[in-house]
């Protein structure tokens, strides 16, 4: 019988939630790594028992944890993230040149085929890869050494590489996104990178159509159509039908097109989910109503999903890595809030319930579909 396992990273530890395929009763284990910030917990698609977690602290720096038994036990692995060569500089908030400095790992993306290979997106923005289960890390420095690198600058949350998408068809192609540099694609396994920001318009930067400088919050792809990408930008929900070569806006009738998360239904590539947030000045849902919006047409026409979600006095945020979908027969959708709730829908968003609440602020949510 199929089941689901939800991996939750929070400001004060990690939690693992498990349920059978009905997804009505959930067991909660944790906190793992109590008191540490867990930016991301990710599972290998090639071995469901292999998990990786990014554990960090303002006091003690970065630790990477690995589990070989589905999260029952963990062990620290390598945490040495050294930029390749002379790191150089990027732009600082005041426009001055600032040296690249490693701060933390925001996102871990295990290989689609090899449990020992995993990618790490870090702050200050760079992409690292381990091929030995996280023991050793090497930078794919072609990204950071792209000619635009000295012009990249941090968003308010730091200059983080937060999205890594591996193309399931073309193993040499992957996508990454950086706040606030934009999106990039490699077609040669990470040696060289192309900015893919054409069509993005960001009114908050000097040239709204610039090659780089866009604050991309998240990108999602359906594995059956790897050339179709959906993006939640700082403002604007965007879509590309040609692997990021050109984007067009699909915000349509959303109440606000600011937000952080975006994801795609596991079985319907044109069904997309976002969670609108009022504005970059007020990081909470419009009108105090927590609403997921679903488009069944690949964008532009959106419906509010509210059943089971608080519709008054709700002022939480949902951060960029805090939405996920499972691939059970009726697609499950999950998201976590800065108020410590994890909401789940076992009917593709029609209805929701909190499967755990009162956790520390949720930073990330991933889900595994287990057979």
């Amino acid at each position, binding site marked *: 019988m199929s089941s689901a396992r939800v991996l939750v990273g929070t400001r004060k530890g990690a939690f693992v939630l498990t349920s059978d395929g009905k997804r009505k009763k959930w067991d909660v284990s944790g906190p793992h790594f109590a008191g540490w910030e867990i930016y991301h917990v990710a599972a290998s698609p090639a071995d469901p028992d292999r998990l990786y977690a990014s554990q960090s602290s303002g006091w003690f*720096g970065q630790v990477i944890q690995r589990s070989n038994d589905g999260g029952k036990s963990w062990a620290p692995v390598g945490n040495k993230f050294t930029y390749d060569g002379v790191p150089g500089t990027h732009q600082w908030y005041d426009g001055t040149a600032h040296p690249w400095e490693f701060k933390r790992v925001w996102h871990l993306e295990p290989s689609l085929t090899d449990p020992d290979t995993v990618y790490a997106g870090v702050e200050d923005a760079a992409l690292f890869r381990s091929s030995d289960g996280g023991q050793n890390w090497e930078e794919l420095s072609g990204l950071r050494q792209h000619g635009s690198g000295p012009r990249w600058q941090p968003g308010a949350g730091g200059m983080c590489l937060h999205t890594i998408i591996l193309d399931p068809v073309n193993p040499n192609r992957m996508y990454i996104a950086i706040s606030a540099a934009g999106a990039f694609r490699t077609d040669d396994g990470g040696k060289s990178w192309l900015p893919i920001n054409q069509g993005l318009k960001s009114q908050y930067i000097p040239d709204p159509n610039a090659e780089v400088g866009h604050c991309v919050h998240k990108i999602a792809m359906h594995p059956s159509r790897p050339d179709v990408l959906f993006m939640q930008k700082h403002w604007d929900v965007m879509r590309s039908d040609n692997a990021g070569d050109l984007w067009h806006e699909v915000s349509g009738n959303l109440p606000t097109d600011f937000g952080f998360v975006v994801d795609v239904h596991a079985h319907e590539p044109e069904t997309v989910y976002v969670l609108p947030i009022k504005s970059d000045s007020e990081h909470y849902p419009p009108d105090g109503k927590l609403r997921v919006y679903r488009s069944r047409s690949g964008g532009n026409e959106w419906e509010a999903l509210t059943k089971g979600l608080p519709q008054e006095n709700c002022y939480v945020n949902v951060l960029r890595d805090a939405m996920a979908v499972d691939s059970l027969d009726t697609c499950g959708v999950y998201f976590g809030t800065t108020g410590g709730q994890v909401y789940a829908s076992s009917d593709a968003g029609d209805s929701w319930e909190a499967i755990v609440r009162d956790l520390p602020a949720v930073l990330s949510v991933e889900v595994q579909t287990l057979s």
Partner: protein
Amino acid sequence: MIRVVLPHHLRTLAQVGGEVQLQVDGEATPRAVLDALEARYPMLRGTIRDQVTQQRRAFLRFFACQEDLSHEPVDVVLPRAVASGEEPLMIVGAIAGG
């Protein structure tokens, strides 16, 4: 043996309780003690001093014999009482944050 007191989170990470006791060959300096600590507990690498620069992390302090040794050179000889194990070297996390 040199005694080292770790902050709570590093005791958890290293899976040790109370003090750590270390054999340090040669003169007992902060660098030598940290080298011995990281050799015995590799999971602590990078958590007390930066892996690349070897600089002490900003929110950690080294105390011993009621003195703050944090700003001493890393090759300064630690007090005799620390070298003899009479007093511990305390690695202390800043009382800050939420």
